């Protein structure tokens, strides 16, 4: 209970979740159909629906009819009738059985389509972690939103870095759990240009309901590659750090003061932080590096020891970029933010480096 009340202190995050795409072309029961699987799912769903409706009306209709016709009233008596009829029992067991076999066979056929990847599929690596998605493309690009090419089959090679997640795109009618400790696979052939929602649909902890992103289906390969492209070599360390932060850290940390699963990372540089064991620690370059490589040793007071280590997962350049970015979130420290000569030059020339860097590459997410 005390823990429950403590949770009141942890306010909502400002989410890096992209806005929900517009809802269009839906039917009463389904979102728009954007992959070949819609033909494996939607018609069969409707078949089961209509058969069920017929049976339901039959059942409830008879029930209401009998209740009215045979209701107890003065002069009404129970009429003689049989209390068993084996032929009827067999009939109403076996005949629906044929319908069930139909549903099973049709469902199994659709299932095999949905689970057997065609040979010419491109492969995209999917990394699921609490609480964001990461996609790695064949050309080496990496994004937190998914970008696909219309009519190109794609196989997702999926892994989780922590707990169970599940990859679900309603418009594609496809779903597959992402399991830590092994790879799971699924595939899709998107048929319609547009933007669709991708949800995590296996409960994974605090921000499960914010572990969602968008899938954009592009008409051509070139458009897709342009969308996923990010020039790490040309960009400033702060911008690279920001992109990396969004991909690897934003699930648990806000780039503001607002705490989430982990502390908010704005305005922390140069601060004296109290750790869980009561000691005090200055937030500086070494504390920052240690927090990435050996986080459990210096957890901030009030937070659970659940940050995973990035030892071996981030190289020195990446750590450098992240440091630049996090440092830039504390006002007054930008000028020191890494051998950041490019940003320093731009700051000096335009007087406002952040605006320039924000607009230039904001499409690549």
């Amino acid at each position, binding site marked *: *209970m005390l*823990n429950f009340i403590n949770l009141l202190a*942890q306010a*909502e995050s400002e989410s890096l979740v992209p806005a*929900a795409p517009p*809802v269009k072309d839906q039917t009463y*029961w*389904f979102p728009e159909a954007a992959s070949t699987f819609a033909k494996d799912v939607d018609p*069969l*769903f409707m078949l*089961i629906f209509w058969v069920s409706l017929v*049976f339901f009306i039959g*059942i409830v209709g*008879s029930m209401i009819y*009998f*209740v009215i016709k*045979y*209701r*107890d009233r003065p002069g*009404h*008596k*129970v009429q003689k*009738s*049989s*209390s*068993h*009829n084996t032929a009827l*029992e067999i009939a*109403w*067991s076996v005949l*629906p059985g044929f319908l*069930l076999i139909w*549903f*099973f066979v049709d*469902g*199994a056929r659709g*299932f*095999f*389509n949905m*689970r057997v990847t065609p040979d010419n599929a491109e492969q995209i690596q999917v990394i699921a972690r609490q609480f964001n998605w990461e996609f790695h493309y064949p050309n080496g690009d990496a994004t937190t939103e998914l970008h696909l090419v219309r009519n190109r089959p794609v196989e997702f090679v999926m892994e989780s870095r922590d707990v169970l997640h*599940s990859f*679900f795109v*309603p418009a594609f*009618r496809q779903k*597959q759990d992402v399991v830590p*400790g*092994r790879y*799971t696979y699924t595939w899709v052939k998107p048929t319609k240009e547009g933007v669709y929602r991708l*949800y*995590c*649909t296996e*409960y*994974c*902890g*605090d921000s*499960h*309901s914010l572990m*969602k992103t968008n899938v954009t289906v592009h008409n051509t390969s070139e458009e897709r590659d342009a969308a996923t492209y990010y020039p790490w070599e040309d960009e400033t360390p702060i911008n690279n750090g920001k992109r990396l932060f969004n991909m690897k850290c934003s699930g648990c940390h806000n780039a503001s003061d607002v705490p989430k699963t982990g502390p908010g990372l704005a305005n922390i540089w140069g601060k004296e932080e109290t750790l869980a064991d009561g000691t005090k620690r200055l937030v500086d370059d070494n504390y920052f590096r240690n927090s990435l490589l050996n986080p459990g040793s210096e957890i901030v007071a009030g937070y*659970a020891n*659940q940050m995973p280590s990035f030892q071996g997962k981030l190289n020195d350049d990446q750590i450098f970029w992240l440091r630049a970015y996090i440092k830039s979130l504390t006002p007054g420290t930008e000028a020191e933010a890494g051998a950041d000569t490019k940003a320093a030059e731009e700051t000096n020339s335009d007087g406002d480096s952040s605006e320039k860097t924000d607009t230039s590459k904001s499409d690549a997410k």
Partner: protein
Amino acid sequence: MSATAQAQKLFGHADENNFLNSSKGIKSWLFTLDHKRIGIMYLIGVSAALFLAGIFALVLRSELFTGDENFLTEAQYNQMFTLHGAIMVFAFIIPSIPGALGNFVLPMMLGAKDVAFPRLNLCSFYLWVFGTAFLLTAMLTNGLDTGWTFYTPYSITTTTAVIYATLGAFILGFSSIFTGLNFLVTVNTMRPKAMGWFKLPLFIWSLYATAIIQILATPVLGITLLLLIAERVMHIGIFDPAYGGDPVLFQHFFWFYSHPAVYIMILPAMGVISELISVYSHKKIFGYSFIAFSSVAIALLGFLVWGHHMFTSGQSPLVTLVFSAITFSVAIPSAVKVFNWLATLYKGSIKLVTPMCYALSFIFLFGIGGLTGLFLGTLSTDIHLHDTYFVVAHFHFVMVGGTLTALLGGLYHWWPKMFGRMYNDLWGRIGCFLVFAGFNLTFFPQFVMGSRGMPRRYARYDPEFEIFHQASTIGAFVLGIGILIAFVTLVHAVFYGKKVGGNPFGAASLEWQSSSPPSFHNFDHKIHMNDPYDFSAMVYDEEMDTYVQRDFIDKPTAPVVPEPSKV
């Protein structure tokens, strides 16, 4: 004494010499061995669990009125849905009908004076109390945010009170096992000689089939939860991939119990409905042996389908195919019951009193619940629907529209027997209607938003789903009011209800051949056997304002047993 006075004592209303006042004081209840008192204590306990978990449901549905934050953080919301599920499943639904109704009615339906093991019965009740206390301890310390399904690895790494909660479920499991064992032995050994298997009321058949599941399946949950605790504490490496374990193995172990568990929830409910439909049509149940066999078939087939909860888990496609195929087979015996109930209504004489309203409501709601199972058993549609609100709607239709509805119907049906008082039928039916309407408003929109892609266990959601959530939240409050009215009407009847005799509706099973409330030993006369669905064997006696067995009218001088001694 005169024949009339004797008949009144045996079959009429009993102000004195009934089990409620045969002994007094709190200790005579807490240490009772009387199955009727244990049943009532169970009823109080599971009702409290229903209301607590129900409040959590209203809290979480209120948060979901809009898709943004209202008054719960995500972490708090996660605790609400977890505790709602865990308390409902383990402390309410599984024990409810066997514990509250089964305990009271089963021995009496057999003409027996108690269950085979009265002390084990009391032990079952106290295990329920201790298990629930552990669940409450989890709630009051670090809370619980794993979902009632405790999937790994999250349940291994979360800092919430997983160990208290799993120990609670473990202890509750033993409560269930002991009840099952007790009922099994009672039915096997304590029937009168003349009561063969096919002379048993169908409620008994359903409790027997349930007992088989309770005994065989529950230990698997027990060991699974112990292994989960061992993983959390000692990192034995069975479910946690960080130590070489397999998270999907947990799912297999968990669902191997939890699928049969849902048949523990529904079989007794279907047994109640068989009784209600037949009594309130005043007509012999149609297809007795098919209904009886279908209960056993459901119990056995229910052990073979657990993988249908795991079609997207990463289990192999082959095994997925097999589970889907067998899942369809379980649909048939359930449908058979529904058709037989309808055939029972045909040419009957139907009384639309409160219990019958619940029984008809069951056919409607369980009909939808069962039919929507077809969408989920079908593989291609399930890939889309799994872990969406479609599943949430399906299982609430069968558990609330099924089990809770049958529990309420059964309580109304047997209440006059238990307390010797008649409920207010108008308020009873108002409650039934509000439950029916509120329930449909709450859960039908969830089918639509599920197939449109709304995932489960989401504290926040995209704007396109808002209208469905709002309808659902309003419905939840209507449902809550309906359930409250249903319970208040029952409680009111205990103190202010019109006094009634032993058999106000002319039912023919043996529990009605006793006073209302029954005496301590249940039957103070020699039982006359009759077919439990032969309503022509019952005759309305004007003077006593109750039905009596025709046999007894013909031979009024049945011997009376001596006064029972106090507990």
